[in-house]
């Protein structure tokens, strides 16, 4: 699984403070720690509180780039902030994200092509989040069509079927699993699938347990990537074990160590 570390996000107080004070150390520590824990890419989100989102994004990306060349997942809804982030991060980055209405795809798909980036497309459109798997599939198909039309290869399109907290809407986890399976039938080669995992447990009391159980379920139906707390060792252990059971890695008695040693930058 392509593990995207979620911790460099202005929603966390320490990150917000570092952005405000332009203090690189906490950010660079988080980048290093997440990569060491098995992240293959790092999500970068300036958070809602940043006064000048453009400048904050540029500073964050450049600060991270001082310590790693790992792919960065630029996490913003604003096209101009996205563009600034992509320019600072270089090719191989990920746009996180475009919604599924045509106007948004018309902006972000060409941006992904131009910057040699991947694109996360959410199955949300002007009508909101679909109630079921079919609705998610319809929006995903729109993203697939846009990618084909504009020349974005399928292995750089990542469909996020949008998980909601289980204590808000209990049928959704099932719908999302069905959608992940269906997305793989939309084209050949199919697009990739991704989830912002931690959302499934928002507001619950057993956040880690719900996160890691759902991650394993999603991997079993073909999930390719997830934005996760890679510093949660148990979550990563479950992910590594699920990959092994799916025959995506060769068994060895110390398979957890092997995965981590292979992932170490």
């Amino acid at each position, binding site marked *: 699984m392509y593990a995207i570390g979620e911790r460099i996000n202005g929603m966390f107080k320490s990150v917000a403070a570092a952005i405000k004070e332009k203090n690189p150390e906490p950010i660079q520590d988080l980048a290093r720690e997440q990569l060491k824990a098995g992240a293959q890419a790092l999500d970068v989100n300036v958070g809602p509180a940043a006064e000048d989102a453009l400048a904050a994004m540029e500073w964050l990306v450049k600060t991270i780039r001082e310590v790693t060349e790992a792919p960065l997942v630029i996490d913003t809804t604003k096209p101009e902030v996205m563009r600034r982030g992509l320019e600072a991060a270089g090719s191989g980055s990920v746009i996180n994200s475009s919604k599924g209405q045509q106007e948004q795809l018309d902006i972000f798909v060409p941006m992904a092509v131009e910057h040699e980036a991947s694109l996360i497309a959410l199955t949300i459109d002007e009508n909101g989040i679909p109630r079921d798997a079919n609705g998610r599939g319809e929006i995903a198909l729109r993203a697939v069509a846009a990618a084909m039309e504009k020349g974005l290869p399928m292995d750089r399109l990542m469909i996020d079927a949008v998980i909601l907290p289980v204590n808000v809407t209990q049928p959704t986890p099932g719908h999302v699993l069905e959608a992940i399976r269906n997305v793989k039938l939309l084209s050949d080669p199919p697009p990739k699938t991704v989830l912002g995992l931690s959302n499934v447990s928002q507001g619950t009391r057993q956040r880690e347990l719900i996160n890691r159980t759902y991650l394993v379920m999603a991997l079993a139906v073909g999930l390719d990537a997830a934005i996760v707390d890679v510093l949660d060792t148990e979550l990563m252990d479950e992910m590594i074990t699920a990959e092994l059971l799916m025959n995506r890695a060769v068994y*060895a008695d110390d398979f957890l160590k*092997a995965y981590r040693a292979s992932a170490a930058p």
Partner: protein
Amino acid sequence: MSFEMPVEKWTAAANTVTIGATAAEGGTRTSVVTVGGDTSLPFLHFEGAMPNRPVIAMEVLDVAPAEWATPMEEAVGDVSGDAAAWARKCVEEFGADMISVRLVGAHPDEQDRSAEECAQTVKSVLEAVGVPLIIWGCGQAEKDNEVMPRCSEVTAGENCLLGTAKEDNYKTITAACMADGHKLLAEAPLDINIQKQVNILVSEMGLELSRIVMYQATGGLGYGMEYAYSIMERTRLAALSGDRMLSMPMLALVGSECWKAKEARTGEDTAPEWGPVSERGVAWEATTATCFLHAGTHILVMWHPRAVSIVRKTIDSLMSQEA
């Protein structure tokens, strides 16, 4: 309709490993060997790079085998009691890229030669030839733990390939390799899971992954070759998919395995329908070696000079883009 070659896209490569050290690198070798670096399955030049050609090491033993097959007796019988002379003949007459010295005489059930005697043998071979060395113990764990550190010491700085580290006996030889600047041969008994585990164990001792070559045990034609083949192929696929714990170059022991086979040894008087013994063993060895080339072997350890010559031509042809 035109034919379009199907091309796999891989994300990683096999490791590149160099064996041997010249004077400039602190050793005394006149040539070194670099293997690995492949970015596709073997010889698929349209799909990926194979920057280094597979190499042929010829094997010499510290004591002459009790019973040579006739063709082997004819080829090297005159030198087989003298490891240094045997090695020199392999390099000067037969063009070996490397010499593999196996200290079978150290085994307590054989001649129980001491660590010092073994080290002297290794040293004599080192002085006799300029190519890099592979050095093996006798296969008995306790004895190898005495013999191999001494052989490592007397070849310090020569960047030899030392074997073997196994799942239940890896610490002594790994430590020796690290101390004396050698490469390590990590062995598993036809088992990809154990191979990966051995690689993890030795790397946890601090040996870089780039200093390991894998030996997964070899079966000759008719004696398990297909098991070894499928394991090596699967190992290579794992490497190309990014499994760093299985990305090391691979070695196969072709000569000794093939010349054990009754089909290679039995005389014409016993089995006239099998054809001339002078051809059979050579064909057995060349066929086995060729199969392992296709499985992804980087270092072939061979015995008979004529088999070596046939396989070298095969490598030439497979490495040329027009092949």
